[in-house]
């Protein structure tokens, strides 16, 4: 019963499917991100405590969410590849890493831009920002490890293993940073007020979350095609596919 799965994960099939999926993901992402931005920036009411500064959440939260989602995707794909020897998994992991790292950076910068008016400083050692920073370091480690190997297959496997170790580590980091922070400063002062969100604010946020996920899907598909091509350069199907 596994044969269909292996056929599904065969490089030519993945290459074609990714190509077919890309425009759909992009279309949905464009619509939802467009709606979310317009509704969130222009029509949602300002927050009663934070005024208009809260609108940063419409790009901050989806980026932060995506940074974790991309990391999990990367680690999961790496695990699948290592355990069941499905090579496409390595391609997915390699494709997800730079996307995730870029969104981690967005989450960090927008978080600090949000911190300036709310906390009075660009950088506070807020637990969420700190664990996001450590997540960025983990991304750097995985990306540089993959590139450090001359043999790409070996780099793939090493990076996959590090990704798995990192994914076990993420909750530990998260927990320890919270614990550390509760020692150092009054936790509630820094906490962004998070009462029940009004639905008029929530809808654009959900749209942005969904839109960013679809965008991730689209870019992942595009990068995945490149990764698959690089890995399968010598095979007949690639030669057929790239014939000018």
């Amino acid at each position, binding site marked *: 019963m596994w044969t269909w799965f292996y056929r599904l994960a065969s490089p030519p099939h993945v290459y074609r499917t990714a190509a077919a999926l890309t425009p759909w993901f992009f279309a949905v992402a464009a619509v939802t*991100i467009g709606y979310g*931005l317009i509704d969130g*920036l222009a029509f949602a009411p*300002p927050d009663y405590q934070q*005024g*208009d*500064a809260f*609108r*940063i959440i*419409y*790009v*901050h939260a989806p*980026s932060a969410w995506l940074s974790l989602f991309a990391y999990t995707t990367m680690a999961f794909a790496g695990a699948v590849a290592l355990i069941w020897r499905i090579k496409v998994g390595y391609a997915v992991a390699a494709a997800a890493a*730079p*996307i995730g790292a*870029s*969104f981690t*950076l*967005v989450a960090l*910068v*927008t978080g600090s*831009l*949000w911190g*300036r*008016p709310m906390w009075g400083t660009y950088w506070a050692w807020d637990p969420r920002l700190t664990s996001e920073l450590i997540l960025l370091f983990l991304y750097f480690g995985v990306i540089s490890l993959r590139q450090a190997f001359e043999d790409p297959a070996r780099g793939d496997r090493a990076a996959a293993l590090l990704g798995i170790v990192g994914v076990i580590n993420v909750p530990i980091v998260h927990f320890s940073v919270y614990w550390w922070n509760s020692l150092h400063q009054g936790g509630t002062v820094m906490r962004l007020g998070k009462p029940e969100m009004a639905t008029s604010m929530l809808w654009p946020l959900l749209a942005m979350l969904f839109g960013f996920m679809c*965008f991730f899907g*689209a*870019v992942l598909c*595009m*990068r995945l*095609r*490149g*990764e698959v*091509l*690089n890995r399968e*350069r*010598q095979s007949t199907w*690639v*030669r057929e596919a*790239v*014939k*000018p």
Partner: protein
Amino acid sequence: MGGYARFVWPSIGLALGVLIWNVWAARRHHAQALVRARRALAMARSEES
């Protein structure tokens, strides 16, 4: 933006910039892979003939 414009707009701008960068980088990545695959194909052909 109620006095917060100089924090909100750069955030939005950065996010949109990274979205665009991602598309650009992914396209370039795929294009480079295609070029390399074609080169490998051309080399294989010239060896055959």
